[in-house]
């Protein structure tokens, strides 16, 4: 085998070897991208789990606040009823006051009339 035979054989071996080596690099590149994608998905899943956990906490807080609002509404209704009762009592006393003033005025008129006699 002369130099030309060595060249042809060497070329074949070199090209095949280079192709194989290049393929390993491309496979590694693909694996790197795949790993990066997996890491992204894992991060997104962790973020999602954190959000779900946070949502559960917010729902509990929401229920607690709803309970508090209901209790405040009940308290407000009770106070409204008490205010209504007090107002009614004030009106009643005002009516009595008016009656007593009328009686007092009548007695004062009667007394003045007796003094004139």
């Amino acid at each position, binding site marked *: 085998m002369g*130099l*030309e035979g*060595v*060249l*042809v054989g*060497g*070329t*074949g071996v*070199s*090209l095949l*070897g*280079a*192709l194989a*080596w*290049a*393929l390993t*690099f*491309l496979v*590694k*590149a693909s694996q*790197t991208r795949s790993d990066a994608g997996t890491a992204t998905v894992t991060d997104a899943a962790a973020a999602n789990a954190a959000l779900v956990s946070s949502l559960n906490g917010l729902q509990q807080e929401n229920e607690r606040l709803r309970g508090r609002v209901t209790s405040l509404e009940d308290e407000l209704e009770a106070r409204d009823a008490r205010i209504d009762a007090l107002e009614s009592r004030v009106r009643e006393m005002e009516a009595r006051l008016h009656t007593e003033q009328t009686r007092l005025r009548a007695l004062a008129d009667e007394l003045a009339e007796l003094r004139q006699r």
Partner: protein
Amino acid sequence: MHRLRRTLDTLGLAPFEAMLGTVGIISGAATILGTAPPSIHQGLPAPMVLAWGVILIIGSLLILTGLTLQQLRVEQAGLVLLAATTLIYGAAIIVVQPAAALTPAATYVLFAAACLLRIRVLTQAMAARTLPESEAD
């Protein structure tokens, strides 16, 4: 315009490699179209000349793609193919034109060596990138 400027900036990080890749595309395309370099044409059988041209184009495209997208593994794959084809070219020059081989053969063989050194540098860069900062220091 912005994209062109960004591509030029990226290629400017390794200008010799980018231009060698461009030369590879031109030379590979010429080979496929029937005007292979004389040494390759005389030293190799036709199917192997075609394979040489195709692999030269693929390697050059991978280099330019790797440079542009900053994908070091893709760039390395292209460099391997370019190293093999330039080494074969240098060897073909020595075999076919031994009298006038020294300068052109040395040029292509050393281009192949440069490609292999660049592969080594990129491997080290990737290893450094994956090391924790404390170890990198």
